[in-house]
């Protein structure tokens, strides 16, 4: 339950983070170039952002309740030791969500400068969330500052050597994912309707996505080396023969890691092809489908690779760790039915939600693509 929740949540929040950056950038371009078409693209990004944010919020709540209910002492330790990183993240949530709604609803209702400022605050809030929450994953791989934090020095956890690189990696990967999905979707649309706006949208997606992908790739390689040094159990499980460590692990995920490299390579190749191949023809459509599929899969796949290697431990300490079973709720018997029901009903509701939202907001939205929700909002 925890695994499915984390992977689903990370996938959605990555989209949220990326789109939260793209919308104000596109609006700024519209403002600078005095071109309404960029504004339509910004509204389109905001449309997808809103959908992703709603779904991400649901999974975030699942995540918190699952942790608190099934792992209360783990949650206690985490909220105590990671007090400041979590506070940063919650601050981001508190800023990001209301400002997304305000950004959405004030489109056309306030001056463009003020509206753009609202968008920047929204993006800033979205950025704070991973800045805080990524400490959790760094801490699970290398619990730096545990004793000092329990003794009252909450800032000690920021000395975690994995944290800075991992956070930059996650943020750039999220921006890259959202931008690549945006680029791919509009390239496919451009091939089908030969709409110049969609061609621009695709190009802008690549302009944002490729630099972010480069940063994500570089920090990803650095992260592998850092893991090898500070969390050899995880590194051995994932990197296999590429790891300098040689630790006996529960899972041997090297083949899965190779698969991950194939996905990243696929994103690079298809993104470069789309960037260099100017015509929106059949070959570009195929390339865009590859880019779309690999971009959507990349982050959740990477998250599985990030979390699964810790098993059977919850917290890694070098070549070993603290078993997850040590943290489980002993105070009340929780029937597995609760967990299965949560997974089944939660997934079903999310599927219904996605389908209905897509049908209502994307397929049947009146007007051209890019007007989407915002036109509906204005009408409402």
């Amino acid at each position, binding site marked *: 339950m925890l695994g499915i929740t984390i992977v689903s949540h990370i996938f959605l929040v990555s989209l949220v983070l990326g789109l939260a950056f793209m919308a104000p950038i596109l609006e700024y371009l519209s403002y600078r170039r005095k071109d309404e078409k960029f504004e339509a693209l910004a509204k389109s990004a905001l449309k997808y952002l809103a959908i992703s944010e709603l779904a991400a919020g649901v999974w975030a709540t699942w995540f918190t309740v699952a942790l608190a209910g099934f792992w209360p002492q783990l949650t206690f330790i985490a909220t105590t030791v990671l*007090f400041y990183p979590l506070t940063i993240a919650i601050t981001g*949530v508190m800023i990001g969500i209301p400002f997304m709604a305000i950004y959405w609803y004030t489109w056309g209702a306030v001056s463009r400068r003020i509206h753009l400022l609202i968008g920047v605050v929204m993006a800033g809030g979205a950025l704070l969330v991973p800045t805080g929450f990524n400490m959790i994953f760094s801490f699970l791989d290398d619990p730096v500052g545990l004793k000092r934090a329990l003794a009252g020095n909450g800032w000690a956890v920021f000395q975690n050597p994995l944290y800075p690189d991992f956070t930059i990696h996650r943020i750039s990967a999220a921006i890259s994912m959202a931008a690549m999905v945006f680029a791919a979707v509009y390239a496919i649309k451009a091939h089908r309707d030969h709409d110049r706006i969609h061609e621009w949208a695709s190009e802008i997606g690549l302009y944002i996505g490729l630099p972010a992908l480069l940063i994500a790739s570089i920090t990803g390689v650095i992260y592998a080396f850092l893991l090898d040094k500070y969390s050899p159990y995880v590194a051995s499980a994932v990197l296999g023969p590429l790891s300098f460590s040689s630790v006996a692990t529960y899972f041997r995920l090297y083949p899965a890691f190779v698969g991950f490299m194939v996905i990243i390579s696929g994103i690079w190749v298809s993104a470069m092809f789309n960037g260099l191949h100017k015509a929106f023809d059949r070959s570009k459509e195929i390339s865009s489908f590859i880019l779309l599929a690999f971009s959507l899969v990349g982050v959740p796949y990477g998250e599985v690779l990030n979390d699964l290697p810790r098993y059977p431990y919850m917290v890694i300490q070098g070549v070993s760790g603290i078993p997850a079973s040590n943290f*489980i709720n*002993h105070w009340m018997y929780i029937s597995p039915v609760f967990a299965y029901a949560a997974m089944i009903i939660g997934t079903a509701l999310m599927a219904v939600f996605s389908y209905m939202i897509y049908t209502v907001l994307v397929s049947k939205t009146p007007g051209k693509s890019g007007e989407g929700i915002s036109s509906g909002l204005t009408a*409402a």
Partner: protein
Amino acid sequence: MLALVNLLAKANLAEVMTVVGIYVHAWFLVFAIGLPYVVLALEWKAIRNKNGLYLSAARKASAVWGVSFAAGAATGTLVEFGLVQIWSGTLAALGTFFFAVMYLELFAFMTEIVFVVLYIYTWERFSYKWVHWLFGLVVLVGSNLSALMILGANAFMNVPWGTGDLISKVLPWESVSYGPSVVNQTALLSLSSAMSKGSLALASLSLGSSLGQILSNPMIAFYDPDLWVTFLHTVSAAIIVVAFEASSVFGYLFLKAPEESKAGFLKLFRVSFGVGSVVSLIQPFFGDLAGRVEYTYQYTKFLAAEGFSSNGGTNPILGILLKGNPSYYFPGFNQLLSEVKASIDPEAALATVKGAESVESIIFPLYYGMVIAGILLFIFAVLYFASYSGALRRIEDKVVGLIGIDVDTFLVYASFLAAALALFAGAAGWAVREVGRHPWTIYGLIPYYDVVTPAAITPVFVALIIALELAIFASGTAGIIIVLRHELKGVLKVK
């Protein structure tokens, strides 16, 4: 002793930002709970009467949902993390008594999210208009169920149902059973004892396995009598607040509108004022139920809220309502102090009496302020319904005519006061409920200073968080106002 003083200082500091956070959350939450009733009433009128005016108003009012829902979700996250991060000791309750309600709340929340989006963006998409209305009804059910579940946790904090006679062992004057005993009392007292040195005890993994099973029935929170009365009382309060707020907006527009547009605004005003009036007439009944539960299970809070002296006394109305005897003598705090030594934890019992007595000067005026506000709202509701009777309306017109206005205009002005009174009553009611429980987080079991985080809480940190909370309050409220102003433009242009 020094450790307790430090814990108290930290808890008192943390409490300030929690109070601000909860009220900011409540400000947005009342829209999520109350607005569906007003919007659905307007849409219902629109569909039944095929009236574009009601439809337009309902559609535009529903736009407020977007901002208030987002701000509510954000501040809800704040409150949720406040619980698990600032008051991290409550994780012991989240892993036991609160589990079922929090778990089921997720489904209500998801339902609410799905259908609030569908409702907002499917206006006039269906040829059969009631489909859209039904979407709204699901939102209403979802938001109410969500409130029910969250209040399940709060109700347990006030009336820890399922603990049998455990509370009366700690607080001897509470000589009633708190439901069937579904707890391992020894384990629960051991947990309470371990946490008495601070919540850091929960970091010890051996505490988890050594205590064993504390709770055997996770669904016990749903049987809490406090849950159902609090739910009815709280949801009714939210409806009253939003209905009268909406009335005051329509009323303001009525006053500002040119003569030819006034009739339209008056129609909208009457729908929302009507919703508020119906619930204002029922609310005293729910308030009475809540008072009876308080008297039965939280006697110290009852004494403080009713303003009894230390020696207790008589109160004819309360005597008749609760005992059928106007001369019934209600024992006071001094009587309870004499029972303290019979407790298995005399210090805790003493702290309970002293805690309630010390907050009496705060919650007594708040409680009676709430009651008076409720009485005034009740009177407005009666005047509203009387205005539908020809004979009574003529009398009303004559009376209010003395100040040169007709009854409709009087009700419009009354709506401004009603909105303020409803807000005050709601805020005061919750203050009484929470402050009156001092010093307990879970009544009779875990005091608030035992659940505060071991992490450092500094005045600077508290100031920053409060600044953030107020910024969210200001920006969210500004967002609602902007949306409202934007959406209400031309609301009467629809024929």
